């Protein structure tokens, strides 16, 4: 019971911290002092109190979409276990629901973008759904590998499989899948090298350009939802990268938080040492994700 409370509390509170860590890392690399680690929390509080400017062109989808998106991501977050603990929601087949809840959030984000009738946001939405056609197969290859390793179709058991396995036979495919999932993490959360969360050149962006017209509390919900998504997908990746368990609950939770912060640092490092790819090359990166996860699948089925 306590673990479920901690799970929900972390899911609600921790995500904005990750972005703070990422930005701090980037600042360190650039030799700046950078914004405070808690900056996104301040931003969210400020946005919640602001008024909203809504384009006359939009319909109810525009205001509803951020909320539906956040709900879907939160629900997905309840299915992903953190560290060696059980997730609050676990049942046979929850892995499909997990993937499709992310798709639901994509549906409404892109629809809200197109609701504004702006060419820029249309461009972002078109890119988002196109790249998803490459990331979705990669995700399912990864899920297949985990399902095969654990012999289970419950996300908790599947993600705990690397912990239990300890067999060298599956190590190779796990390494490949970890690489693929890291690319997915960057792509799905619109980080460099796929997307640049900082640029103001709308023509070069995917996610940021889709939310160009949202403001005030709606923008706050979107920023918060994006942070939660980063948190949830990192939690998935952590199971494969750090399959450790100490046995003591307190130690395991602190270990999980530490690992999460390390992931944020890793993302920050990638963003600092790489430039954003040209839009036409993004697909090659995502195909690399498919290749990694697909070869992981092939290795496991020998």
């Amino acid at each position, binding site marked *: 019971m306590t673990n479920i409370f901690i799970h929900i509390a972390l899911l609600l509170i921790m995500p904005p911290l990750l972005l703070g860590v990422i930005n701090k890392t980037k600042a360190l690399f650039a030799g700046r002092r950078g914004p405070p680690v808690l900056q996104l929390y301040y931003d969210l509080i400020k946005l919640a109190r602001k*008024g909203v400017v809504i*384009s006359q062109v939009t319909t109810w989808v525009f*205001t509803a979409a951020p909320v539906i998106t956040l709900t879907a991501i939160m629900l997905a977050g309840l299915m992903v276990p953190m560290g060696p603990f059980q997730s609050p929601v676990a049942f046979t087949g929850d892995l*499909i629901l997990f993937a499709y809840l992310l798709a639901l959030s994509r549906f409404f984000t892109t629809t809200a973008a197109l609701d*504004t009738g702006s060419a820029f946001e249309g461009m972002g939405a078109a890119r988002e759904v196109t790249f998803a056609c490459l990331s979705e197969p990669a995700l399912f290859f990864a899920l297949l590998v985990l399902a095969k390793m654990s012999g289970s179709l419950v996300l908790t058991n599947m993600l705990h499989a690397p912990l239990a396995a300890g067999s060298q036979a599956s190590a190779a495919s796990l390494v490949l899948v970890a690489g693929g999932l890291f690319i997915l993490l960057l792509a799905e959360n619109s980080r460099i090298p796929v997307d640049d969360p900082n640029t103001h050149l709308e023509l070069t962006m995917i996610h940021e350009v889709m939310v160009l017209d949202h403001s005030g509390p709606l923008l706050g*919900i979107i920023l918060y939802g994006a942070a939660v998504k980063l948190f949830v997908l990192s939690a998935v990746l952590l199971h494969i990268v750090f399959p450790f368990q100490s046995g003591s609950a307190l130690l395991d939770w602190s270990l999980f938080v530490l690992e999460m912060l390390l992931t944020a640092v890793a993302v920050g490092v990638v963003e600092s040492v790489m430039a954003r790819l040209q839009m036409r090359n993004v697909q090659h990166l995502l195909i690399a994700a498919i290749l990694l996860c697909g070869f992981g699948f092939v290795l496991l089925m020998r």
Partner: protein
Amino acid sequence: MNGLWMILSAAGLMMASGFPAGFGSRQSAAAQRLAAVLMVLGSLTGLSGLAVALFSSGLCAISLPWHLPWGSFSVGLDALSAVFLIPVFIVPALGSVYGLGYWRQTEHLDNGRGLSLFYGLLAGAMVMVVIARDSVLLLIFWEIMALSAFFLAATENEKPEVRLAGWIYLVATHTGTICLLALFALLRQVSGSFTLYAFDAGSLTAGIAATLFILTVIGFGFKAGIMPLHVWLPGAHANAPSHVSAVMSGVMLKMGVYGILRMLTLLPATEMWNGELLLGLGAVTGILGIAFAIGQSDIKRLLAYSSIENIGIITMGIGLAMMGRVLHRVDFILLGLGGALLHVWNHSLFKSLLFLNSGAIMHAVHTRDMNRMGGLAKFMPRTAGLFLLGAVAICGLPPLNGFVSEWLIYLGLFQSVNAGNGMPWPAIGIGAVALALIGALALACFVKIYSTVFLGQPRFASHASPHDPQPFMHYPMFLLAAGCVVLGILPQVGLPLIQQAAAQWMDPAMQENPLPVSLAPVQWISGAALVLIVVSGIAVTIIRKNIRRQPAVSIGTWSCGYAQPTPRMQYTATSFGEMLVKRFSWALRPRTRQPVITEPFPSKSGFSTTVPDTVLDRIVLPFVRYAGHRMMKLRLLQQGRISIYLLYILIILLFLLCWESLGIGR
């Protein structure tokens, strides 16, 4: 037994529904209303008959005297037939009510009566196809169905493109029928009768069994629209009146699926490649179907291609279940076939909803070209809401019904990871990846269609004032949408019947150990769907209320500082799909016409791109043209005089008579 009689009378009522109108005047509105009332009555009779049959005995059969030399009038009802009867009773009746507003006889003097007549015939014939237990009887009603559909698709036959689509459909459906004739003749040879009841299939040689299987897939696959047999589908669906498209896509395609399932139930299941072929065909049909859909800018052609995609998903489920029969895996059969059958229901709900919706849109803006729509949600909010619901459902997203059936098929495909050694689990597992790709493409497709039609700024002439359709058109859509929600939250209401139908594919040995509930815990899906709807509903209400309280300024969309944006600058349907079309250009072969700029001050020019059907335009039509050219010499036999043709028949009959009496054939 009584239930089956009620279903038979329902079929009679539906088939007869259009006849009274034929005696009325051309502009009589009453005649059309009578037809709709008869259709609804027929559907209610049929549904109550179905309920009576299912709650009393379940299985039942009737055989009536029959004066034709072959076959017999035997009909029957089992769980499989019941599953397919439900959409047949629901969708056409709703469509006929919709037709009262959409295709008023008073406004369509030339074809109103014919439409009512053939619409009823189509619906009634489909009922008979599903309950026929004799292959001759089935073929008779199959042809009535196919021909009625031809006349319906060619309703506006004064337009050349409608005539062309109609002819292509007619040729395709009869090519399928030829295969069916061969199939049933061969079946008669090996089983000794025309009846469609189980026979001792163990005695079939592998070659015969394979031939029967291939003939089944081709013969019924033409109707279902499995690629590459789908060539007739986009044109016929796009050019038919919208409620006819709804019936054709929502129900008639499923008759092909039904035929495949009925025949596979009779045929032996020993060959692994049968299932593998179906799984592969399904995956290809699904991926390419939705890829073609993304390339379309005609709203109804897009929906038609999306039907092909959904048939692909259904075929994947059937293929998985076929492998389950060979491998004696209960989970493959129940999840694969169960998911496929549930998807049959789901698709008949949301695709009919979307086609009816497209009719309302066309009434409002008088075009099928999505690039000339936009911003309609402001003018027709209820239609927009219903369309959005249908779009979410068809993408297979939670919390609506499309998710449940795709979830079942996914679970079946993922069960392969529990297989022992020597199982074809990689092939099945890759099926799950293919389904994921289909899902992602479908999402792109339906975001595109909803957004370019309903969102943004209008791209049509400003003097048009579109509005929500009248109640007759509105209520059928509302009922279909309600069905999508109910099956999404409470799939439990339909699953027992579907499980019963899927159980027909299990050996007696397999039926003894029933399915563990843990295989597909649907109650969790219900719970998640409910939470999703309630939580996001409450949250949306709170947010919308609160942001209104604040001093909100209302202005136009931010266009990055550009002062005078126009609606033409929005992303169109074509531009939204451009990246994906390019990725699939190896299959889609888009035709692009773009200006070449040579002078420093180029004159006005245009850019256009279309995605025609590759199989039809690059393979079928050239072949037909070539064959037509090559066979000119045979025109010698064709002089256009009936007496000569009768002479040919006489000569052939005499020849056959000699053949028979001389005993050459024996």
